[in-house]
């Protein structure tokens, strides 16, 4: 028998209370892990954004087009290394309810500007060569069961072909992966030329541009050059670093970070109250036993540590189970037929969660532990 054994026996003596306390902690940490993973995914657009990449949009808003002629004019500017143009296709595969992020791009410049997409050189070459070539993210391919060599139709809910069809045929030439685990692999990219030649309206227009600069330190200068270049034209531009664009895009639906932080804080506050109250009651019920232990010769600091260990164990067991459950949920979601973002509970989330568990264990245990520390033997026998 050891002190840890005593802690364990005390912990498990009221099984229903233990279960409910653990369950509350479990839920709080599961919610924390899922929301933090989601927040991390949202932030990944900002975190993974290249420092030397700019986004150039129509100044009115990003749904308004720009003339394709802008591409070469931007490319000619000082400190600009490369430019790619992108068009939102509004694609879906078979089911109009299930959108597939699909964009028309210039393959060669796309591969140079967005070098975080990983695929074999042979497949890159095949894509450039095949006007109907389509590159598909790994996650999208897994979701729809696509393979290289498949010929698939994709519909647009915005555009149509000159003959009225809303579907375009594509050859899948590559299934790309991401340089980073959180790199988006749910998107599809195809030739702008193929799109531009066949679409019934909007020819010669592009959605936005991705611009690579020679040095992040020159970003401001390039932004200023681009926006000045098109000032007072029919299509004025607004340029910004990619990270700023991604952040603004996310914040369109509100301050997600604040919402998530508020939910997580509320969950933890409730847990602190529940577990703290439960611990205070548990120790109060054991007043006489603590008095007996002190009478036998157990020193107060030792009892203090045992009580704290109890609350720490509750937080750690419940919390780690919550993290495991969150991982399980993310795994199950990734196996489902719904296209969901790549949520990852990485080491930093786990470490932060363990830190919170320790703090929570200490906070919920400190009052009963101090009560036990201060408990006078004579009082303990007269109180119960």
């Amino acid at each position, binding site marked *: 028998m050891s002190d840890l054994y005593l802690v364990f026996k005390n912990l498990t003596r009221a099984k229903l209370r233990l279960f409910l306390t653990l369950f509350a902690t479990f839920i709080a940490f599961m919610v924390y892990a899922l929301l933090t993973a989601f927040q991390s995914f949202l932030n990944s657009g900002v975190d993974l954004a290249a420092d030397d990449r700019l986004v150039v949009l129509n100044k009115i808003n990003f749904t308004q087009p720009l003339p394709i002629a802008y591409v070469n004019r931007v490319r000619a500017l000082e400190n600009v290394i490369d430019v790619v143009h992108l068009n939102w296709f509004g694609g879906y595969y078979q089911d109009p309810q299930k959108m597939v992020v699909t964009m028309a791009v210039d393959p060669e410049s796309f591969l140079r500007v967005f070098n975080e997409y990983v695929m074999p050189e042979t497949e890159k070459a095949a894509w450039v060569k095949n006007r109907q070539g389509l590159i598909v993210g790994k996650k999208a391919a897994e979701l729809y069961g696509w393979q290289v060599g498949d010929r698939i139709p994709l519909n647009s809910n915005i555009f149509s072909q000159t003959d009225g069809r809303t579907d375009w045929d594509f050859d899948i030439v590559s299934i790309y992966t991401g340089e980073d685990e959180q790199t988006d692999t749910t998107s599809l990219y195809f030739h702008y030329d193929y799109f531009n030649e066949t679409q019934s309206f909007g020819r010669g227009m592009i959605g936005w541009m991705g611009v690579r600069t020679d040095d992040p330190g020159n970003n401001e200068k390039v932004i200023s050059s681009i926006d000045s270049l098109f000032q007072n034209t029919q299509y004025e531009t607004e340029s910004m670093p990619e990270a700023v664009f991604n952040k603004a895009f996310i914040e369109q639906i509100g301050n997600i970070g604040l919402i998530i932080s508020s939910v997580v804080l509320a969950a933890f506050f409730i847990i602190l109250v529940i577990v703290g109250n439960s611990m205070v009651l548990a120790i109060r019920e054991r007043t006489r036993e603590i008095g007996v232990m002190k*009478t036998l*010769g157990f020193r107060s600091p030792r009892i203090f540590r045992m009580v704290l260990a109890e609350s720490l164990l509750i937080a750690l067991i419940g919390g780690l189970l919550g993290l495991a459950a969150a991982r399980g949920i993310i795994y199950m979601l990734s196996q489902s037929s719904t296209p969901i973002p790549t949520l990852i509970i990485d080491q930093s989330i786990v470490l932060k969660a363990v830190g919170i568990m320790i703090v929570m264990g200490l906070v919920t245990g400190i009052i009963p532990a101090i009560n036990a520390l201060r408990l006078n033997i004579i009082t303990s026998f007269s109180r119960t």
Partner: protein
Amino acid sequence: MSDDVLYKLTNVTKSFVKGKEKITVFDNLNMEIERGDFLAIMGPSGSGKTTLLNMLGGVDQPTSGEVTFDGGRVDTLSEGQLAGWRANNIGFIFQFYNLMPMLNAARNVELPLLLTKLKSKERKRNVAAALELVSLADRAGHKPGEMSGGQQQRVAIARALVSDPKLLLCDEPTGDLDRETADEILGILQLLNTKFNKTIVMVTHDPRAAEFAKRTLHLDKGEFVEKELVT
């Protein structure tokens, strides 16, 4: 102090402040307990029996006076030192057994041994011997809730004995038991005193329980009213 004297209280005063009132429980109390003694302390409620027992057990300190145990001062020890002193020298037996409900009999008996440097194997051996002594070896795996009052008190005696303390302090050890079981418990205490020369101090209301002791002191209003009653 004679070598035979285990415990000595010299001019011990104990007073409490309750509200604006100062209550003096003992005023210049003197007593000696010899090694191998089995002393019963009797007296009406409020006479100071429990306060005296608490002082003897080192869970309460005198307001003034000197308390000497086995040649060393106890009244000058800090709270932490007193805890260690209790663990090394005193075995406690309570009226309501005060066993840990989540531990079985063997684990309850082992509890004081966690305060020693004994290894697990030695601890188990001592626990088995203590349970054997109180004839409860076959109940080692039972929890307090699965045992009768008498059996629980025997486990409590084994717990008090297991670390081989110099003094056993018993607070109404039979107060919660029927006559027959009470006699069994008192018989065990008597055996510990006569056969194993354990020094025992027992607080009791029960004159019949006091008959098992070697001598009885009567306490009234903080004073021993009858010096000694040899039984």
